[in-house]
C-alpha cells in the first residue's frame, strides 16, 4: 500500500512524518487467523541462519549477518457507520548482509530453505564484489560481542491479534458514532497492529530471537458548514505505542487535563478512544467559527502531543550521525550539527534543554532488546544543559567519533530491506521542579497554548521549521482566553531551543510517536516515540496561514 493510498483511504495524515510510501505495510494480505499461528521454531531458524552464514564466509565474506523476519500487520479502517477495509498481512523471508573487502552487499529472499539462503548469501557476496570496483572508503565495523542464543519480547498484557476483529470494529464504530453525535459530519478511524518476529544471527556468534508488538488507534473527524463551504478537522490525540490491546482500556490515572479553559485531555499509557472522539467531534465543529490569529511574537506553551513532533524534526534527525556525515545528502539532507559545529561547543538550546536517546523506554514504539546489527540497546544523553554531547550511531560509524561500540540504532523495516541507522526514541527530560500546565500558563503574559500535531516542515539541514497543530488557545495575562485558528509558528532550531524556558514535571510527561518515520534510499519507515512534559518557549514567531482561493 502506498502512503497516498493510505491517506486517501483513511483521511489520516498525522504521524506520516515524512515518507511517500508505506512499504512496511505493503505485505501480502492473509487470513486473520493465520496471524495467530506461531512462526518457525528457533532451532529451525538457527539452522537456516547457519546455512547462510557459512555460505557467505565460504564465498569470501569477512562478516555476515542474517535476519529471518516474519512481519504481521493488521489494520482496520472505518468511516462513519461502516467498515472500509480490514487488512491482515504477513511477510516472511530472509535478508542477508555481507562484508567483502570492506564493501557491503545485501540480498533477500522469500524462499526460506537452507539451499536458497546459501544461494542468496552468495548473491550478496557477488553484489559486494561488483561494487568493490568503485569503493573508496572501506567499511570499519566496530567490534561486537556475540550474545549466544538470547530472546526479548515487548512487555504486553494482551496481543491485539488475539482480540476478535468484531470487537475492534465495534470500538472504531463506537468512536465514530461519538464524534458524529458530538458535531462531526465525517470521521475516518483506523487501528494499526504490528508484530515483528525477528531472528538475527551473525558471524559474531549472536542468535537473537525477538517478538516486537506495536499498536496505534487513530482517527480524523471533520465538520463541514455547507452554507459557507468551510470545513475543519481534528485528529486523534492518541500516540502509537509499544503496548498490547491494554492501551485501549481507559484509565483515569493515565489521563492528563490540559490547562483550564482548553477542554483538552492528553493520554499516557492508556487511551480513552471514545472520550477523545467525542471531544474531537465537538472541537471540529467549534473550529468552524474560531478567531483567526494575529501574527506576531508569542510565548508558546506546547503540550507533549505537539512538542514530540518538533523534537523529532529539530533534534532527532539532526543528531543522526549518518546524516551529519552526508549519507542522506541526496534525500533527507545533512545536518547543521556537524562534527566541527559540535567541536566548537556551540549551544543547541538553553540550559533547560536535556534530551536523551533511548531504546528501552516502556510503552514507546522504539523499545527493543537488540538492534538489527545484534547490539544490545541502551540509553544515552544527546543534549545536556543545552549542549550537544553525542550522536546516534551504528557499528560502521562508531570509529568516526572515536567510539568503540555502536549505540544500537540499526533498523530495517523488513527482512527485504537492508538495515541502516535509524532514530531511537529521543525525548526531552521533564522539569525537576513541581509544575503543572496550569501553573505554567499562569506565568505567560501573551502566548498561545498548542495541543496535538499538525502541519510540519523543516529544511534539509534542520535550521528553519514551521509547525501547526490541532488546537490553539490564546493566553493573556496568565489565563486561557479564547480558541484560535490559522496558527503556525516558524523558527530556527537553535533559536527555538534557546528560547526554552523549562518543562512541567514528570507527572505531565507523555509520549508522541509515529509508525511512519521515513529515511534512506530505497526509503524505509521506522517507528519512534518522543516523550516530554508541557514546555514553554518564549518569543516565537507566529504566522497567520489563512488564504483565499
Amino acid at each position, binding site marked *: 500500500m502506498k502512503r497516498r493510498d493510505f491517506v486517501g483511504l483513511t483521511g489520516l495524515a498525522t504521524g506520516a512524518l515524512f515518507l*511517500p510510501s508505506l512499504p512496511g505495510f505493503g505485505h501480502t494480505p492473509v487470513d486473520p487467523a493465520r496471524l495467530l499461528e506461531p512462526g518457525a521454531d528457533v532451532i529451525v531458524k538457527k539452522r537456516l541462519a547457519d546455512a547462510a552464514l557459512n555460505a557467505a564466509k565460504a564465498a569470501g565474506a569477512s562478516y555476515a549477518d542474517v535476519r529471518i523476519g516474519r512481519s504481521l500487520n493488521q489494520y482496520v479502517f472505518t468511516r462513519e457507520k461502516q467498515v472500509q477495509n480490514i487488512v491482515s498481512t504477513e511477510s516472511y523471508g530472509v535478508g542477508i548482509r555481507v562484508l567483502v573487502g570492506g564493501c557491503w552487499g545485501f540480498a533477500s529472499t522469500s524462499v526460506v530453505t537452507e539451499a536458497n539462503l546459501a544461494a542468496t548469501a552468495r548473491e550478496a557476496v557477488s553484489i559486494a564484489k561488483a561494487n568493490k*570496483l568503485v569503493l573508496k572508503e572501506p567499511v570499519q565495523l566496530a567490534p561486537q560481542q556475540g550474545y549466544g542464543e538470547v530472546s526479548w519480547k515487548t512487555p504486553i498484557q494482551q496481543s491485539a491479534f488475539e482480540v476478535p476483529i468484531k470487537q475492534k470494529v465495534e470500538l472504531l464504530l463506537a468512536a465514530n458514532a461519538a464524534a458524529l453525535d458530538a458535531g462531526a459530519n465525517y470521521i475516518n478511524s483506523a487501528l494499526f497492529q504490528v508484530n515483528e518476529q525477528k531472528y538475527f544471527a551473525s558471524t559474531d556468534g549472536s542468535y537473537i530471537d525477538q517478538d516486537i508488538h506495536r499498536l496505534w488507534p487513530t482517527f480524523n473527524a471533520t465538520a463541514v458548514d455547507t452554507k459557507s463551504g468551510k470545513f475543519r478537522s481534528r485528529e486523534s490525540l492518541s500516540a502509537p505505542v509499544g503496548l498490547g490491546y491494554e492501551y485501549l482500556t481507559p484509565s483515569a490515572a493515565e489521563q492528563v487535563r490540559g490547562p483550564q479553559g482548553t477542554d483538552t485531555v492528553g493520554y499516557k499509557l492508556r487511551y480513552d478512544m471514545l472520550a477523545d472522539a467525542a471531544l474531537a467531534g465537538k472541537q471540529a465543529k467549534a473550529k468552524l467559527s474560531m478567531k483567526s490569529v494575529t501574527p506576531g511574537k508569542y510565548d508558546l506553551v506546547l503540550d507533549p502531543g505537539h512538542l514530540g513532533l518538533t523534537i523529532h524534526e529539530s533534534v532527532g534527525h539532526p543528531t543522526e550521525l549518518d546524516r551529519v*556525515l552526508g549519507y542522506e545528502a541526496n534525500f533527507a539532507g545533512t545536518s547543521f550539527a556537524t562534527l566541527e559545529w559540535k567541536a566548537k561547543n556551540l549551544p543547541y538550546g538553553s540550559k533547560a534543554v536535556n534530551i536523551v536517546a533511548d531504546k528501552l523506554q516502556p510503552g514507546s514504539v522504539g523499545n527493543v532488546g537488540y538492534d538489527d546489527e545484534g547490539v544490545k540497546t541502551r540509553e544515552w544523553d544527546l543534549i545536556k544543559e543545552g549542549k550537544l554531547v553525542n550522536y546516534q550511531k551504528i557499528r560502521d560509524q562508531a570509529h568516526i567519533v572515536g567510539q568503540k561500540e555502536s549505540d544500537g540504532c540499526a533498523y530495517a523495516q523488513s527482512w527485504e530491506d537492508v538495515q541502516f541507522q535509524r532514530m531511537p526514541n529521543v525525548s526531552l527530560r521533564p522539569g525537576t521542579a513541581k509544575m503543572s500546565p496550569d501553573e505554567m500558563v499562569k506565568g505567560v503574559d501573551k502566548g498561545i497554548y498548542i495541543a496535538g500535531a499538525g502541519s510540519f516542515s523543516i529544511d534539509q539541514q534542520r535550521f528553519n521549521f514551521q509547525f501547526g497543530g490541532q488546537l490553539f488557545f490564546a493566553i493573556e495575562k496568565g489565563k486561557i482566553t479564547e480558541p484560535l485558528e490559522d496558527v503556525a509558528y516558524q523558527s530556527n532550531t537553535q533559536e527555538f531551543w534557546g528560547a526554552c524556558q523549562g518543562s512541567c514535571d514528570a507527572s505531565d510527561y507523555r509520549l508522541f510517536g509515529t509508525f511512519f518515520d521515513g529515511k534512506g534510499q530505497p526509503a524505509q519507515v521506522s517507528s519512534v516515540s518522543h516523550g516530554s512534559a508541557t514546555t514553554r518557549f518564549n518569543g516565537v514567531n507566529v504566522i497567520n496561514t489563512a488564504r*483565499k482561493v
Partner: protein
Amino acid sequence: MAILSKDEAQTILKKVLSCSTADECEATLSGNVGGNVRSARNTISTAGASENVALAVQSRFGKRSGTATCNEFDDATLRRCVQRAEEIARLAPESPEYMPLLGPQQYLDGSRSFVPATAAIDPDYRARQIGASMALCDARKLSSAAFLDDSHGFIAKRNSKGLEAYQQVSNITFSVTVRTPDGTGSGYASGDYVDASKFDAARFTKIAADKAASSVKARAIEPGKYTVILEPNALVSNVDTSLLGALMGSLDARNADEGRSFLSKKGGGNRKGEKLFDERVTIYSDPLNPEIANVTFSGDGRPQQRTTWIEKGVVKNLYSSRFWAQKAGIPDLPGPNGWIMEGGTQSTADLIKGTAKGILVTRLWYIRPVDPQTLLFTGLTRDGTFYIENGQIKFPVKNFRFNESPVIMLNNLEAIGKPVRLNGNLVPPLKIRDFTFTSLSDAV
C-alpha cells in the same frame, strides 16, 4: 519465476478461477525484479537486489468479500488460497458500497511500458553508472550522493465475469545531489525512464555539479512575493509531496461532493466545470504516451483512457471510486497513472532570458499541507536557488520557506516551458508571479 509471460500468468489465473465456488471471484498475479545502488561521499554506501511474485484472490458471496494470497503456485496451494478467500468472505460484514466485479474490458493496446534493456540491468551496470557519476565529481573535487534504482515486472488479472488483463512494466530512476567540499554549495538533478538505454548517470551528475559549483556564497535577500521560475524538479518529486502532485491528488469527486476539498462548492456539490486556473493550464493523462507509457488498467480493472483533467484552466473531470461514480451519476474514472501538463517550446534557460527580475528554483523540499481548505502548502527551496536580473542569473541566494497554494500558483502563471519526464509524468518549468516566500533558511 518473478516474470511470467501472458500465457503463463493466465494459465495460473484460470486454474485459480476453476477452484472457485463463490458468486464472484477475481485473481491478480504480480511479479517484480529489482536492484539498486546508493552512494554518498563519492563512495558506494549500500546496494541490494530483490524479487517477488504474489497471487491475490478475492472471493465474493453477495455483498460479502474476502481476500487471500499465496506465493507458491502448485495446484494444492492455489486451491487452499481460494478456499481461504471464500472462508473469509463468508465471515465478512456486507459492504454497503458493494459493486459487482467488472466484466470484459477493452484496454488500450500499444503501451510501451516495458523495455528489455531495463530488464537486463545487472550489478555491474549499476556499479558502472554510479562509478561514472562519482568519477565526474572526483575530477571536479565535488562530493556526490546518489541513488540508482531499477525494476521490471508484470501484473495480470482475471475474474469470473470475463475480465482479463496483462501488462509488463520496467523503470529506472536516478537522482544525485552534488555538494562543494566546504558545504556552501549544493546542486540536484533527477530523471526516470521506462527504457534504460536512454539513461546516462554522468549527464545528470554534470547538471547537479554545475549547480553546486555556481551556488556557493549565496546572498540573503528579503522574503516576500517574487516572480519565480520553478524547474520541473520543483513541481514534481519522486521522494516527497509536490505542488502539482498534490493538486492532481486532490481531484477526488467524493471529497469534493462531501464538502471537504478546495473543489467543494458553497451550498453543496463540486466545482467541476468551473475555470479555476489560468487558461494556459491543461493537464491530461494518456497511458499510450511513449515517454510515460504505463499500465492501461487500474487496480480494480477499469481501463485507463486518455482523460483531460484540466482544460484551459477549467476543471473537466474528477476521478472517483466505482461506487461514488454510480451514486453521484458521474463518469466512472480511475485516478491516472501519470499525467501530462501541456507546455510550450521554451527551455528553462529561455524562461530565464525573458525574466527582468526573479528567482530560479531548482527544487522544493519537505512540502506539507497547511490548510486543505485552500490547498495551502509550506516547504523550502533547496539545492540551487538563484537571483535573476535582466534575463541572466546574477548570483545564488539563500534558501526560502514558502507558503503557497498550487491553486493560487496556477492563477499567477507568467509562462510555461517545455515539459520533461519526471516521476512518470511530463512536467514543464513554470514562471509564476507573486510566489510567497515567508522566511529565510540558512540550510545549504
